């Protein structure tokens, strides 16, 4: 298995650790070099296409990453695992479902399939499992994915909308969030960056409430929250470890310490000790509006990189 330093060397200067997001766990988390590609939101190259964002160099940069991963797959074979963390397509705004997105980006769709990517569902491409719900056709998409090390589950990979009150696709709040996103998507025809402006405004409001703990000053006395979904994911990992899930894993098979997500479009890597165990949350960022991050895990090591 390649180490993170081997991986950086092979990229020949194209990879940079994002901020200081590199950590080492106490035990192995994966047995393969695991590369996580977060939200892409591919559309049909129109003004609302946040992947292209009107800049052909963004597509070229992503193709550069896929070319590198194709070479790596040929060299490393099964020693490499590549996971797309959902929202690969933005079906909330697509004119012709995935069909016309494939027409717009044949190289990206072809290459990402060729490198044997494991696909996890996001809220923007969840329709892929709804079209043929009765027949059970999922187009190879999974709700979540797991890594094993030493015979036990050690990491869980999912999109992250499950922790988001306004985007959980199984609740009424998520349905409202979807409609609001569609309206904002339509507004992008008037101003292409309206989603970014409104998103930043919303984030600053949430951050202010979070920082001063307006609603939960007793429960969160520190007044500091390194990731808005940290509590959700530590709770999820602990429930798995206790065997309290519907996924039929007994506690003997599970020792989860890492959750890997996308969804927020803001990369972070957070470490949090709790009840005698250390938990990690890796948010891999995005490839929209100029984002160019990937999450990488190798053995005990984990980091968020930017691909140049």
């Amino acid at each position, binding site marked *: 298995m390649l180490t993170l330093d081997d991986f950086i060397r092979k990229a020949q200067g194209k990879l940079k650790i994002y901020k200081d997001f590199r950590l080492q766990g106490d035990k192995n988390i994966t047995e393969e070099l695991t590369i996580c590609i977060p939200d892409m939101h591919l559309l049909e190259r129109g003004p609302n296409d946040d992947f292209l964002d009107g800049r052909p160099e963004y597509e070229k940069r992503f193709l550069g990453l896929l070319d590198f991963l194709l070479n790596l797959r040929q060299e490393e074979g099964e020693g490499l695992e590549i996971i797309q963390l959902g929202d690969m397509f933005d079906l909330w705004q697509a004119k012709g479902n995935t069909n016309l997105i494939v027409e717009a980006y044949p190289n990206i769709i*072809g290459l990402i399939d060729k490198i044997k990517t494991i696909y996890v569902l996001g809220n923007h491409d969840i329709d892929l499992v709804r079209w043929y719900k009765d027949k059970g056709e999922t187009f190879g998409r999974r709700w979540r994915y797991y890594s094993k090390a030493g015979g036990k589950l050690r990491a869980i990979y999912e999109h992250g909308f499950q922790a988001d009150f306004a985007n959980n696709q199984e609740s009424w709040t998520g349905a409202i969030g979807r409609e609001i996103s569609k309206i904002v998507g339509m507004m992008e025809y008037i101003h292409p960056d309206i989603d970014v402006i409104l998103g930043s405004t919303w984030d600053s409001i949430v951050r202010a409430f979070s920082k001063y703990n307006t609603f939960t000053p007793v429960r969160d006395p520190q007044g500091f929250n390194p990731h808005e979904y940290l509590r959700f994911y530590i709770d999820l990992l602990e429930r798995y470890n206790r065997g309290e899930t519907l996924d039929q894993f007994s506690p003997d098979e599970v020792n989860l310490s890492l959750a890997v997500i996308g969804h927020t479009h803001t990369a972070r890597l957070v470490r949090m000790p709790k009840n005698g165990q250390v938990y990690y949350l890796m948010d891999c960022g995005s490839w929209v509006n100029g984002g160019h991050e990937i999450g990488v895990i190798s053995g005990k090591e984990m980091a968020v990189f930017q691909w140049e």
Partner: protein
Amino acid sequence: MRRVVILFVIIIGISSCTTLQQPKTLGQIKSEVDCIQYKEGMSWNQISQAMGHPDIAPIPEPGPDLSKNTRVYKNKVVIFNIEMKEVKEEGKVRFREVVTGIDVCKKK
């Protein structure tokens, strides 16, 4: 303020209606039309039996051969079957969409 709220409700309502329109499958589309699949070398009779008389019969293109003709149907449905094909471009693996079949259809 009331007008803004009303406008917001209308926009939500319209976008919800568009959500209710389910995307169609190929099977659903084909259930509304009669189709014949084009294969190179197939006889013209098969086409004319399935599609009926052509709407326009253009005069032949200039040249000695009067047997080379075109026939035009208006308002028909054409279905292209498309797949991805791997190609090499400047030493890199790239992909192109290619047409692997054509269905010509008329409404039932």
